[in-house]
């Protein structure tokens, strides 16, 4: 297959920035509307009192925390994966990395909103942060929630850096290709990038350092999220497996999210030439591995509970296996295991983008269910049967939780409007192609500047 020329790359990838079609406005209008509705709904909730949700005694966590865990999980798509790929120098990563990292940043932003949205007194959320007050009271550092706060912030900062660094050369390119206000803005963003060897060198070093640093953070984030549950003496929550279980699940759902995002970008921005089926196939392989891993974890968790045969845990166990929550549970198993293993296991379906997308959609649904099934059945079924209860979400929660999907699309669309969704300079310097590797990057950068 022929690789598009550098000029081709520029024109293809910068086109969406320079020309805006009516579809763009339509999309923004549609998804923006949904997001605004959700924000309004949330203000209504904060104003009226938390009771307008379906949360009740004894199920005190529901849709919001589920969505929180889910989005934090999705955020493991980008930074983590692209960091790994960078480190192992997987060449096929090049078109993928940025749209992956973007998912991380946005998913984190959305996920981090939920702990605030679910507070009984959201206007006091800043008490989670350590700040000197006349009360001389700091947050309780024993509480996993406080560590969530730190972990998420660290990961978000790291991811933003990780995303921004490789943008600089591209900003420079756009700067040079545009005029007027836009030129000035991108000029500022590109921080005076001239593509000197020094700058290139610094960029590369920074990237490799970041790649190494971000890995443990990424892993720690979802481990800490899992502590939210494993630290409380609730049946089926207090499990040593939760750390790796959550991380695996997170990466799993992350990849699925990434595949879907790539598929959409490919269609909307006509990037057929850059996001090739092989990329999907590779990610599909990765997803296959994670599906199997996930299956192992779930099987392990269930088996251990079953053999442990602790009454309270068995109550929850049966409730999910064959009582009120069974339909959801088995849907989850199909979506998370059966579907991806079959579709990604068979070469034919794995090679088709549709196959990958279908499997990914299944995984996204399944992983959301997984979080729901971890949280709700246990809470509704703690130790004293007198205090059993059933949680039913109210429309309001469904709207807010659902609107976050619209939110990420919206953010993505807007992002794709201001930044080339594929790292141009990385495309242009494929070491594996002879005749290009010898050219120093800055030469190309300079070459681009001349019209």
């Amino acid at each position, binding site marked *: 297959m022929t690789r598009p020329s550098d000029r081709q790359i520029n024109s293809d990838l910068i086109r969406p920035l320079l020309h805006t079609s009516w579809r763009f406005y339509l999309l923004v209008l549609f998804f923006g509307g949904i997001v605004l509705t959700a924000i309004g709904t949330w203000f209504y909730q904060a104003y009226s009192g938390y009771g307008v949700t379906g949360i009740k005694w004894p199920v005190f966590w529901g849709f919001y925390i589920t969505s929180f865990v889910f989005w934090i999980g999705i955020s493991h798509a980008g930074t983590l994966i692209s960091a790994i790929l960078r480190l192992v120098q997987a060449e096929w990563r090049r078109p993928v990395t940025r749209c992956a990292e973007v998912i991380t940043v946005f998913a984190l932003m959305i996920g981090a909103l939920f702990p605030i949205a679910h507070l009984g007194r959201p206007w006091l959320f800043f*008490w989670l942060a350590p700040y000197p007050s006349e009360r001389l009271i700091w947050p309780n550092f024993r509480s996993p929630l406080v560590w969530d706060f730190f972990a998420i912030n660290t990961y978000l900062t790291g991811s933003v850096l990780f995303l921004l660094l490789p943008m600089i050369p591209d900003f420079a390119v756009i700067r040079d290709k545009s005029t007027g206000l836009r030129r000035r803005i991108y000029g500022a963003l590109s921080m005076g990038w001239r593509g000197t060897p020094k700058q290139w060198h610094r960029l590369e070093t920074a990237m490799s350092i970041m790649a190494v640093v971000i890995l443990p953070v990424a892993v720690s984030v979802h481990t800490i999220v899992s502590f939210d549950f494993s630290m409380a*003496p609730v049946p089926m929550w207090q499990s040593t497996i939760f750390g790796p279980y959550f991380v695996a699940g997170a990466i799993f759902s992350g990849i699925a999210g990434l595949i879907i995002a790539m598929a959409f970008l490919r269609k909307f921005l006509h990037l057929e030439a850059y996001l090739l089926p092989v990329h999907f196939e590779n990610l599909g392989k990765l997803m296959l591995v994670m599906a199997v891993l996930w299956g192992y974890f779930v099987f392990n968790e269930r088996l251990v509970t079953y053999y442990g045969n602790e009454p309270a845990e068995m109550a929850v166990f049966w409730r999910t296996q064959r009582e009120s929550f069974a339909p959801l549970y088995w849907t989850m198993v199909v979506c998370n295991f059966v579907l991806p293993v079959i579709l990604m296991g068979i070469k034919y379906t794995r090679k088709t983008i549709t196959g990958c997308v279908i499997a990914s959609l299944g995984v996204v649904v399944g992983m959301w269910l997984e979080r729901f099934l971890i949280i709700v059945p246990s809470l509704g079924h703690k130790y004293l049967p007198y205090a059993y209860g059933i949680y039913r979400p109210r429309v309001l929660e469904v709207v807010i939780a659902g609107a976050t999907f619209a939110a990420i699309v919206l953010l993505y669309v807007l992002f794709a409007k201001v930044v080339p969704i594929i790292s141009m300079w990385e495309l242009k310097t494929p070491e594996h192609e002879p005749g290009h590797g010898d050219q120093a990057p800055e030469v190309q950068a300079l070459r681009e500047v001349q019209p």
Partner: protein
Amino acid sequence: MPRWGMAADLDRCTGCGACVTACHAENNISTVGPYQAMRGRAKHWIRVERYWEGEFPDVRLKFRPVMCQQCGNAPCEPVCPTYASQHTEDGLNAQVYNRCIGTRYCANACPYTVRFFDFFNPEWDKPLHLQLNPDVSLREVGVMEKCTFCVQRIKAATIQAKADETELKDGDIKPACVQSCPAQALVFGDLNDPESAVSRLSESPRGSKLLEDLGTHPAVTYLSRQTQV
């Protein structure tokens, strides 16, 4: 420094529910009304659990009053990010309303499910509000509340004793539930005082703690109901 504790004699408890109403009256617990009650928002700091055993005609029923167990090693405390749920020197699990931001994490962590959340600002149809006890805060929307062992009575008695320069005697302090109980099934006192009635009852061979194996070290001892038939 005392360690406040309670003993509930299930052989005396008749399940009449006097303690439940007494608690509402003492602690300004608002009634939420039928609709919210149906949605699981009713607040009963103390509840009388009942459990059926057997089938007709060989049926038995067990009553068990359950209030906050004021655990010595409380799961609700470490999880609270703002120290709203916090341990005091005399062994109470304080619930500090003004520090509570409503994560409801403590309620999830509590294995006894004795914590209740204010889903809305509590309301009293006037003039019912004239009954409100000025010694107890009115909670507001978004905070967690639970049994306090009637801390306001503990404080009042302690301050009074200090004023009279006397020692607190066993039985001086009676939480509302203890005071109301017609069958005197509930006993309250200082577990660090070996002579107090509650310590002696806690030593009883009939005594056991609720969900003891979770390692929460509850301050409430349940004296099992005997069967001689």
